[in-house]
């Protein structure tokens, strides 16, 4: 394994170099949003300083530059997930926006009373609520793939109604998360996609947590839709991606009406633009889309495999140190939530006798940022019989030294409550 130069990677992230509550910031909330490298920050500034203009409209030089840069990001995303055509890449506001788009267009056009949509027990609210809304409207039924205690989907369980038993010709859409934001579990989506296609269903993959860690090839996966957010991939907020297969996107009705998405407008009738523009009504988030390219370049330059290997190293180091601590204390106060072997660098746990709010605040007092609460997965928390966890999630700029500081803070806490 090529050794990453973490020091030089950290230098690219200005936000990391500050004190919080008098202590050096330790940012372990990367599953919520990652920090942004200088190249991304500079790209936003450069755009407004030199190229600011609306896109696809003017013939003047600035409009030309802005349009070229905007479309360059589309190409970069296409290569990043290996889609066949760049028209298959649609810019949205984020994962949530992308899922709502599919539910309100593809869902609206294809669901009818009695049809079924399958999601899983570990979905983020943004992959639950849009489907509930369209199911309610259409009289369709939402089915949920159950999980086991380790936080893994039940696929072909002999007793429980796992994924395979849920599938039927009534299944029209399967929408599942690739990697769970609350648990870190990597789901067997290749298998899910194959089985769903066998009954004629289309599959949406929520890749929000997957894209910064796993190699994604939409042609190899054969998913029908893939959605993710730039801000969890070292990119800006307010930019999301919807990948859809060309023929599906072409057959789908438009989402929002307005400028950019039309071919011709008369008061009697409007004809719609071709994809991707059909789904990009109005002036988009130009600067942030342009800057997103630099985030993908950042990841590509280091290499996803290197990033993944390093993050896995951090994860096992942290798990081992916390296990050691847990075993040294009589009543083993730490419980890990989500213990699948197949995980990315997300570590969720609870501490017996201490509310997660308090833990979050105590860690913040030491400059450590973690996420506490239900992580927008209330049904999942209910399954585990808890109302939240403490979640540390690692990115490529985190270090073992930071984990040491984190574990020492947890140690003081568990010794306090003992």
């Amino acid at each position, binding site marked *: 394994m090529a050794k990453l130069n973490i020091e030089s990677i950290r230098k690219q992230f200005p936000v990391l170099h500050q004190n919080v*509550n*008098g202590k050096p910031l330790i940012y372990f909330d990367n599953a919520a949003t990652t920090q942004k490298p200088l190249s991304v920050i500079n790209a936003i500034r450069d755009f407004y300083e030199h190229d600011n203009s609306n896109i696809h409209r003017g013939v003047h030089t600035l409009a030309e530059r802005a349009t070229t840069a905007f479309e360059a990001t589309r190409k970069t995303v296409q290569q990043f997930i290996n889609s066949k055509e760049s028209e298959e890449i649609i810019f949205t506001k984020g994962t949530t926006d992308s899922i709502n788009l599919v539910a309100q267009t593809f869902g609206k056009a294809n669901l009818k009373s009695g049809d079924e949509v399958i999601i899983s027990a570990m979905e983020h609210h943004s992959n639950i609520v849009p489907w509930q809304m369209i199911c309610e409207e259409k009289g369709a039924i939402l089915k949920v793939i159950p999980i086991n205690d380790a936080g893994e989907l039940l696929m072909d369980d002999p007793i429980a109604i796992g994924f395979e038993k849920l599938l039927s010709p009534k299944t029209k859409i399967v929408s599942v998360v690739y990697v769970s934001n609350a648990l870190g579990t990597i789901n067997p989506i290749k298998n899910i996609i194959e089985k769903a296609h066998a009954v004629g269903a289309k599959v949406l993959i929520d890749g929000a947590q997957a894209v910064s860690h796993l190699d994604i090839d939409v042609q190899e996966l054969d998913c029908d839709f893939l959605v993710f957010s730039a801000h969890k991939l070292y990119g800006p907020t307010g930019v999301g991606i919807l990948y859809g297969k060309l023929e599906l996107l072409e057959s789908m009705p438009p989402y929002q009406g307005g400028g950019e998405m039309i071919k011709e407008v008369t008061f009697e009738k409007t004809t719609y633009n071709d994809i991707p523009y059909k789904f990009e009504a109005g002036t988009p988030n130009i600067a942030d889309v342009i800057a997103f390219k630099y985030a993908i370049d950042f990841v590509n330059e280091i290499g996803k495999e290197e990033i993944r290997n390093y993050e896995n190293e951090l994860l096992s180091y942290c798990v081992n140190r916390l296990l050691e601590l847990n075993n040294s204390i009589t009543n083993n106060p730490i419980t890990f939530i989500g213990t699948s072997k197949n995980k990315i660098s997300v570590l969720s746990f609870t501490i017996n006798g*201490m*509310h997660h*709010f*308090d833990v979050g*605040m*105590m860690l*913040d*007092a*030491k400059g450590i940022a973690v996420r506490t609460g239900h992580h927008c997965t209330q049904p999942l928390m209910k399954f585990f019989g808890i109302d939240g966890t403490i979640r540390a999630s690692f990115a490529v700029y985190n270090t073992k030294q930071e984990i040491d500081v984190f574990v020492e*803070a947890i140690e*003081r806490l568990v010794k*306090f*409550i003992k």
Partner: protein
Amino acid sequence: MHATSLRIKMKTTTDIQNEIIENFSLFEDDMESRLFYLMDLGKKLPVMPDEHKTEDYIVKGCQSKVWLYPEIVDGKVIFEADSNTEITKGLVYLLVQLWNNRTPDEILNTDLYFIDKIGMSRMIGSQRSNGFASMIKQMKMYAVVYKEKVKSL
């Protein structure tokens, strides 16, 4: 010696606030120690009977669960309190320590200067500061209600 002079004089709300300020100042800017101290204070709250921990006595506007149960005894308000989180327990302890066994007027006339002096909002953040404000409001509400009751007797 006269019998009454042996009775320990009850501290005023000003005395108590000054003590709180002094105790927190010992930790200077060490936020973690301050919060550990706050959680230690929470442990001093007398156990609150479960039958008083009902929906009616939950403080609205707190993210954590906080119960405040008031009674009036000899014209003074007695508070029982508890919370499901340790830091919040410490917060409600500060207020109970200050206002337990006071007349409604004493409660309503207290100038709460200790909160700013100990840098509360920086210590507990904005969400919990709002929750803390809700506890104060609730306790003052009870004082207003008892004051009215006493008047109408």
